[in-house]
């Protein structure tokens, strides 16, 4: 109904203004997003399928792609579990320091990933880190290894699930949960049967954004990975390395794959997401 009202109002009013606005927005998005992305794709296929073929047969590149996926999936799982937990804590409970926690959760978005990487090295670094040597002597290497890369990715993508889920939780309110409790459901049953279905789309959207962000993470991972070929080199690091070595075809092809996954994620969700789910 609201849509009808809005449509009616704009039709009566400023017609030319609406077209100008449309053109400006479209042009802006075209030059900023669509055209550059398209060019990446075109460059990737400049020699037909050769570039793509080359990278997919290069064991170092396929290893990097696989590593990227493993790290991204691990980070997303961790961020989803903790993200939903933290969201419920933030929305449903009152506790001292809530505002501070809330502000802290936005830090990963505002701090440069490279700073995140350096910070993690300071804490978990094998030789001089605050916590690293202890872990290392226990046989667990964090920095220059996969755990550190997962950690860095988790850090960077931390707020994405939370920022998607919190508003949904707030909007849903807690009456349905209270009703479930009064009908005999315990905390776990209430969460699984009532809360989770209600926030489902928030969680899915958060997961997709986190996945896209995690696959594309570069700065923090570069610092903590050590960038060892065939071991701790991820897809984004491959893109950089190939680009710097004048292997333009290879770098564009890898970049194209990365972009493709991210775009596919967003498209799948926007197709799946029900229109105005009330």
């Amino acid at each position: 109904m609201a849509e009808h009202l809005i449509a009616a109002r704009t039709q009566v009013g400023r017609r030319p203004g609406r077209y100008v606005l449309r053109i400006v927005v479209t042009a802006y998005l075209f030059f900023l997003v669509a055209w550059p992305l398209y060019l990446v794709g075109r460059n990737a296929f400049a020699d037909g399928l050769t570039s793509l073929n080359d990278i997919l047969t290069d064991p170092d590149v396929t290893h990097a792609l696989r590593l990227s996926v493993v790290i991204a999936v691990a980070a997303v799982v961790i961020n989803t579990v903790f993200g939903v937990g933290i969201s419920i804590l933030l929305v449903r409970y009152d506790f001292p320091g809530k505002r501070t926690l809330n502000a802290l959760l936005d830090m990963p978005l505002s701090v440069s990933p490279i700073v995140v990487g350096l910070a993690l090295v300071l804490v978990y670094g094998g030789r001089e880190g605050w916590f690293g040597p202890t872990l290392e002597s226990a046989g667990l290497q964090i920095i220059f290894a996969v755990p550190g890369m997962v950690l860095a990715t988790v850090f960077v993508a931390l707020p994405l699930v939370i920022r998607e889920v919190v508003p949904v939780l707030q909007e849903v309110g807690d009456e349905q949960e209270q009703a479930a409790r009064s009908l005999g459901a315990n905390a776990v049953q209430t969460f699984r049967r009532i809360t989770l279905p209600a926030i489902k789309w928030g969680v899915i959207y958060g997961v997709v954004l986190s996945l896209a962000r995690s696959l594309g993470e570069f700065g923090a991972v570069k610092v903590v990975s050590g960038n060892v070929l065939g071991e701790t080199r991820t897809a984004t690091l491959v893109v950089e390395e190939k680009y710097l070595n004048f292997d333009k075809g290879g770098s564009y092809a890898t970049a194209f794959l990365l972009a493709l996954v991210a775009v596919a994620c967003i498209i799948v969700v926007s197709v799946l997401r029900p229109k105005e789910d009330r």
Partner: protein
Amino acid sequence: MSIEIVNVGKRFGDFVALDDVSVSIPSGRLTALLGPSGGGKSTLLRIIAGLERADTGKVEIEGVDATRLPPQKRNVGFVFQHYAAFKHLTVRRNVAFGLEIRKRPKDEVRSRVDELLALVHLEQFAERLPAQLSGGQRQRMALARALAVEPTVLLLDEPFGALDAKVRKELRDWLRRLHDEVHVTTVFVTHDQEEALEVADEIVVINEGRVEQIGSPDDLYDQPANEFVMRFLGPVTQLGDQLVRPHDLRLSTDLTGTTGAAARVTRVTRIGFEIRVDVATTGGQPVTVTLTRNEFLALGIEVDSDVRVSLTPGSPTTTVSAPTQPPTKAPALTPTP
């Protein structure tokens, strides 16, 4: 006694929601918690349900000390003002929720849900989602859902508050009939004195965190314990230092009498079947009198007529504590929800 509330107190920060409240709610009856918004009645209901925890005092349900029990162990049915329908579940699954949690066999769940849907007249809507129902239907679904688990007590928090006037009246009658069929101990919260007087067997008037009076609708109306109850339950006007109901006042054109007070008519307003006559006593006190149309015509009075105004013997009155009260025309009917 089904629900015993003993010395219950509850604060939200500096705000005292309940101040040492003790109430006994009888088994198998329909009890209304009546009072203005923010008076603590919803808080009391939520404490009975376990959705809120009392700071002090004790709650006993059917002889079991429930003070520390979580809501899911109290076996109460709770109906919310805004339905709290499980939006992602069909009407059938909504009603079945409590039974599924209790892991009842499928056949039993099915037949019980069918029975309840019939009781609330929603059989043909079983496979719909709550969003496809009207407000009244959603509230009936919520009632069926609460009744499904065969609760010891049924608690309703302003159950009809979000519905329009007509549906509200229908559901009110329907709740009364339903209760006559099911006989589960029922407590409902309302700020609408008409709703309480019409539906309840027993009314608990709550104001500013305290119980003002407990009694049957007749008790409350005929013997209000204090000025607040008198004002809250119906229209009042003031004659001398007495608070009285405008329809308990009589006008007389026989000016030689000694009963009542001499007054002059200042205004005549016709409201449907009744006539409201505003008069001013010789002392300058404004008094409102309501008459039926026939009474009014028989008197033959008009603005500036001299009359005597007196109270029908045996009518409820209370003495006004603060003499500066302005004349009240309407009851404190619906404070902001």
